[in-house]
Structures are given as C-alpha cells and as structure tokens.
C-alpha cells in the first residue's frame, strides 16, 4: 500500500526531526497546508467532476423539517439527510452533553428510501441517543450562530447583502458540534469504505458531510430569505457565499484519538514534513513560485487581520504574528535574501531563527503552497491500515536501547513532583463526555484513560534497569502485563518515529488545546478561536469553492481567505494566475 511506503530520510538536512516537530508548543501552532484533508477532498471533487443536487426540501415556513442533498461521484452516490427543528435558546450548547440541536444530519451511503428516511427521522435528532446502521457513514449536528443567521436572513430578504463585518467576525452561519464516523453509535466501520478511492485519504466522508452541511446552511438562509422577502429577496453574492465557512466547536474528544492512533499520526506528520523537506531542498526556485510566495505574504497579512479572538494568549500570538509577517516581507524586499541557491531553505531558516512558532508554522504552509506538483502525491500516503502489534521477538536489550534513544523526553521527567502528574483524562458517565481532571480535586483517578505515555515509559524504564537482558519480551510481559501497552507503543515508535507527542500530557502546564489545533490543522481548519485550554471554535471550508464553482480553474486556491475576496492568492498549480 502506498500509505505504508513513505520513505523517511531522517539524515536529510531539510527534514525536521521528531524531537522538533512533535512538541506540544509547535503542534499547537499548526496551520493547514495543501495536504490538509479538506484540500485533498476539494481537489478530488473537482478532478472527478462530482455532481451535487438538493433532492428534497420539505420544511415549514421557518425552515423546520427534512432536507436531503446528494453528491454523485464516479462510482456511487452519497446523501446528506438533515432534520431541522426549533430549540429553546437556553438548551443550545456545543458540549457533548447537549440534548437538542438546531440541525442534525447523517451521511447516507447511497440514496435513502422512504423507509430509511423514516428510520433516521426517529434516530438522527437524538444523536448519541439514537442507533445507526452500516448504511450511515457519519452522524453530525449543528447549531446556528444566531446573530449571523438572523442578520443574513433579514438582509437577504430585503434585497441587501448581510453585514460583512459581522459575518467576518464569526465566519459561518452554523457550527457543527460533533461529526462522528468510523462505527460510532452503529454507523459504518471505516473498513467498509476504506478501499473506495474517494475514502482512502483520512476523514473524507466526515469532511464531505461538513462540506454538504456548509452548502445546506447557505441554501437554507437563502430559502428562508425568499420565504420572508418574496420577490425582493436576493441570494448571497458570489464572494460572500464562498467566504462563508461552517463553524465547529471542538473539545477534548479529539485528543484521545491522536494518542490512540500513533501509526496514523506518523503518516500525517511524515507527509507534511517530507513536503517541507522537498521544498527546502530545491536549489533553484521553480518559475513563478517566489513571486507567488511574496504575494501570499500580503494575503496572509489581511487574513490575520481578520483573525480576531477573545483569548488573551492567542490574541497576543496573532499580534506578534502580524508584526513578524511584516518583518519578513521587509526582509524579502532585499532580493539577495531570496534570489539565491536554496531560496526556500533560506526563508525557512531565517524564520526559524528569528520568529515565533506561530510564524514558523505559517511559513511552512506558505512555502509548501505553490509546490503542488512536487508534493500533492504525498496526500496518498496519509492513511494506514497498520495496527501496532506487540512484538514478542524483540530483545529486552533492544527495547532498552529504544527507550533510551527515543523516549529521553519521558525518562528524564521527575514524576515524583506533583506538577508532573497534575492532570488525568477520563470519560464521564454523562454521555461519555471526555473530561480533563486534576488530581486531588476531581474524582476518577482510578478510571483514568491510558494516555499517560510519558509516565508509563518512565515506569517501564525503571523496571527494565533491573532485568536480566537474556529474558525475552514475551516472558517479561507475562511477569509484568501492566507494561504490555507501553511496550507495544515503544516498539511502534521505533518503526514510526513521528507517532509520539514528546511531552508530558499529565503536566500542570499541559494545554489539550495544542493537540486539538494540531489535528484540526491537518483537517484543514482555520481561524482557531480558543475558548479555554480545553476547547476551541474554528472555521472549516472558509473560502472553499461552492459546488457550482468546483469546475473553475481556481478551485484549489482558497487557503487563508479574506472577506470579500472570491479567491485566495494565485497559485501555480492551476491556470487561474489571477493577481490579488
């Protein structure tokens, strides 16, 4: 399989090491790249000429009822089945523990019969309280941004465009608060669809669901405006339409996923880091690429200006990022800095030496962006079917070496200090909501999730010091079964070095937010808007082409969008070449 055939050249001067990349502070500064999963999906939709159609809309004058949107790919059809209802304002919450939502959805595998729709009508609005079948590929829900939704309906109904400042400050009409796939609540297992071309990249069906929800939100607002304003009503103008994303509230549930899928995470990171290494190793810039990069700096300056958050930490980081991009633009004005051998490596190195992690990771995204022909093949390597196995034939001496070499970050932590074991992760009985507890404060230490990687390796290392190296690992595991999971993990990291977060996840200073942003950036999310250290709001598909724009030449030019602009900066991967 392609996904298992990525070659990692760790000796390359241009490849960043796992020790550098897999640290929480850098992970928490991630930005989407052209390898992010939403970008991959949009490129496929365009390349394969997917057909989109609203097949049913049976709603009342307030928009409550049933809607179905279908998409036909070269081999099959998928249908978003959505139900909308009126809910009390005080029950509108993004938490897992919510009981009602403005809109609920399933992505159905095929075209649903009336019997299927009747079944879903009984289950989908209940979300986790319902049961689903292998015909359902995803389960999702969304709540309105009341201010933006109302302003958009009112404005369009009067023949006006909505308040762009308000729309820019929020970025979406509705936000999803969960998108479940992969066998959750009885939905189809990933194995059912994993061999389908359009499903091979990670999370493609979940992200297709979100893309269809985005279309649903825009379509719903336009229909409601027409209902209200009659002939006076207008639709969103094209640039506003394209700028509207779909929001998402992401909490702790994403963090355990990252830690439970180390082989997958390794492939994601290797793909991105290989893309960066390929670009940095270019001796002479490909025609037009440096010019595109320089224009992109101007574009991201405006994008960052529109990235407004209340969180003080992130706000300060954005402010610094603004200054650093300005400084980089000035540095780039000196042509001798960039028109020289290995220009991309020079730019990267300058940024790494002088600017914040936030700026470094943004520049990683920007210098990869104009190099689609060089890096897009890596998107095919980001899945895996590998489940790390316990390898009983490894010697104990080898295991000790791996622990010493790869887990120095863990074996050197002093876990006798309270701050080193301050937190624990657990599932609440309240709808299985994942929560983050503090020892001595919260109940549930005995039921903590097995995410204490650093501590468990540390403990393993202590025991290994007193063990006869002639013993086989199988014998050792019989004597010490409590280490089986961590030995399996160490063995996996030896083979897949980018799979492990190299920080203490129990530490008092640990911010789960960093894990969330890392994963969301791989999805392609933008406008990270932290609401605490434990959850964030984001935008998805902001700037992405709508279904009727997928055949346009600039369908892939939508990174770091700006309000009021119908496209992002010009890339050299398509024929658009429009100027900003």
């Amino acid at each position: 399989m392609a996904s298992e055939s990525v070659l990692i050249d760790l000796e390359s001067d241009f490849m960043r090491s796992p020790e550098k990349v897999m640290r929480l502070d850098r992970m928490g500064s991630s930005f989407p790249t052209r390898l992010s999963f939403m970008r991959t999906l949009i490129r496929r939709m365009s390349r394969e000429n997917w057909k989109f159609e609203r097949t049913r809309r049976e709603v009342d004058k307030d928009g409550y009822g049933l809607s179905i949107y279908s998409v036909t790919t070269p081999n099959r059809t998928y249908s978003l089945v959505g139900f909308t209802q009126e809910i009390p304002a005080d029950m509108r919450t993004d938490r897992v523990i919510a009981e009602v939502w403005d809109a609920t959805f399933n992505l159905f595998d095929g075209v649903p019969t009336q019997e299927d729709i009747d079944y879903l009508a009984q289950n989908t609005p209940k979300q986790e309280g319902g049961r689903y079948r292998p015909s359902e590929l995803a389960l999702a829900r969304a709540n309105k941004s009341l201010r933006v939704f109302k302003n958009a309906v009112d404005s369009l109904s009067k023949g006006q465009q909505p308040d762009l400042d308000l729309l820019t400050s929020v970025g979406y009409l509705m936000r999803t608060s969960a998108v479940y796939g992969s066998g959750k609540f009885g939905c189809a297992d990933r194995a059912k669809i994993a061999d389908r071309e359009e499903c091979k990249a990670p999370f493609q069906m979940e992200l297709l669901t979100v893309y269809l929800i985005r279309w649903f939100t825009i379509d719903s607002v336009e229909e409601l405006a027409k209902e209200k304003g009659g002939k006076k009503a207008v639709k969103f103008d094209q640039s506003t339409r394209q700028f509207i994303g779909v929001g998402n509230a992401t909490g702790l549930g994403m963090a355990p996923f990252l830690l439970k899928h180390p082989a997958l995470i390794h492939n994601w990171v290797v793909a991105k880091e290989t893309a960066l290494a390929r670009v940095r190793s270019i001796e002479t810039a490909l025609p037009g690429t440096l010019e595109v990069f320089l224009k992109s700096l101007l574009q991201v300056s405006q994008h960052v200006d529109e990235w407004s958050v209340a969180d003080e930490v992130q706000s300060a980081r954005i402010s610094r990022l603004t200054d650093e991009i300005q400084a980089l633009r000035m540095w780039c004005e000196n042509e001798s800095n960039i028109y020289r051998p290995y220009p991309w490596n020079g730019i990267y190195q300058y940024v790494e030496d002088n600017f914040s992690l936030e700026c470094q990771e943004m520049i990683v995204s920007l210098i990869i962006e104009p190099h689609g022909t060089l890096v897009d093949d890596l998107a095919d390597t980001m899945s895996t079917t590998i489940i790390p196995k316990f390898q009983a034939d490894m010697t104990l001496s080898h295991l000790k070496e791996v622990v010493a070499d790869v887990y120095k970050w863990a074996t050197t932590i002093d876990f006798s200090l309270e701050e080193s074991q301050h937190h624990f992760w657990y599932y609440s009985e309240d709808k299985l909501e994942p929560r983050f507890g503090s020892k001595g404060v919260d109940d549930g230490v005995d039921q903590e999730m097995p995410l204490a990687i650093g501590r468990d390796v540390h403990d393993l290392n202590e025991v290994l010091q007193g063990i006869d190296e002639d013993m086989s690992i199988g014998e050792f595991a019989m004597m010490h079964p409590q280490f089986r999971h961590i030995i399996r993990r160490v063995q996996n990291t030896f083979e897949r070095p980018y799979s492990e977060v190299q920080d203490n996840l129990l530490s008092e200073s640990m911010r789960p937010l960093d894990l969330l942003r890392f994963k969301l950036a791989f999805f392609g999310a933008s406008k990270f808007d932290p609401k605490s250290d434990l959850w964030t709001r984001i935008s998805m598909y902001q700037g992405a082409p709508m279904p009727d724009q997928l055949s346009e030449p600039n369908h892939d030019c939508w990174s770091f969008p700006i309000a009021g602009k119908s496209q992002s900066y010009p890339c050299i991967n398509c024929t658009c070449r429009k100027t900003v």
Partner: protein
Amino acid sequence: MSKNGLTISLNEVLFYFTRAGFGVKAPIGVSEDFARSNIWIAQNGFDPSECSLVALDNLDSQKSSLSIQFEKTGDGGRLFCPEDKVLSAIEASVSCVDWIEFNGLDGDLKVTNVDCPLLVVSALGANQCSGIKVSWVDRSNNQYQVNLSDDSNWEIIASSETPIEQSNYADIEISALDGANKTPIKNGKLKTFNIADEKLKTLNNGVSVGDKWPEIYEYFSRCLVKSSAESRASGAGAGLVDTD
C-alpha cells in the same frame, strides 16, 4: 446503549471490550488485545459477548487469574496458572500468541485449565497466525478442533451441537496443522469460514449482540466517572449554553 438485541459496529466492539477488560482490572495492554480478539470473533459472525462474558465474570469474581507461567515439556511447552485457579483466557490468549511468535511451532504448546478456548483461538486468528491446529475437550466432554488453515480460511470440527462460543474450561493443545491431524474427531461436524466473506457480511450488517450484552456494558461502565455539578460545569472546559 444498555438494551438487548442491539447491532453494534466493530469499532464499538473495540471500544467497549477494551474497557470491559479494564473494568475487571486486566491491564490495559492485555485488554486491548482482548478487544482485538473479540473483533475477530465478531467479524466471523459470532456474538462476542457470548464467550467473553464468562472470561470477564471469572476474572471479576477471582475464579480465574491472569497469573501465568511457562514450562518446557519434552515435546514443546506448557502455559499454566501457578495459583489454584482457572487460567484466564484473557491472559492465556496473548501469551499463546507471544509464545508462537517467538518460538514458532516446532513442538506443541499446551494451555492448562483455561476458561474460554475460543478467545485463545481468536487471538491467534486476530494476529494472522495460520497453519495451526487448536484442539480441546471441554468440561462437558465436548470435543473441538479449530484449524486456522491459512490467511483466507479456517474451520471448526465439533463433536456436538453446542456452539463453540459456549465451550468452556478445557486444556488446550496448539500444534502445527498438517494433513494427518486435520480431522481427527470421529463424526465431527465441520463448519468452514472464509475470513474475507465473513468480514464483508459483518461490515454490511453490523454485529448482533444478544442477551449477554448488558453485562458486558456493565463491566464497560466501570471505566466511567460519576458526574458532579463541578465536573459537569468545568471538566470539558466549556460552558453549558453557547450563543454567538
């Protein structure tokens, strides 16, 4: 979720059985393997809760133990519980796989007084161990042989109508499969499985779990932490009402 007659996904088998194992204090790494074994059982068309509940009950009541030792015998080796208890299949299954991966199958491996033989078989299957014969006579004197023929097929030969998932408490013998020892049970009933076909059926239809499921869920529930007003308000870092 704690209803009878449910259909669940393979991912739910992984989620619930890992934590059910943890709920009876099996180490997490062993519980993960236990859950993978249950996925193999489920994707071959069996109800995983049927045989696994016995193993979970035994461990919970301390009728069985995770303690295990190995001793060399003249023609191979033997795994047994050093305590005066039944050997838990939850541990026996992973130890068998480890032993075979490390030593191969030059000689026979015997596993003494294990509670759920199908769990041992499923661990071998889940780890793609093939060319292997697993046989036992259970305490009801029913005789079973499972031939893990190759990567595509496996078969059960049984002396009785009692479903294999209900066969408990036996000394198991594991050896290399060859033509001579393939079908030694006289008048045995043969059932064959094509692994890919069975998996496809399961992926398209889900895993039906029967009346034992609520008890599996009960063990799973032990990993859940009671919610308090404080943890509800702050444990996920978000408020209880969201508007924007």
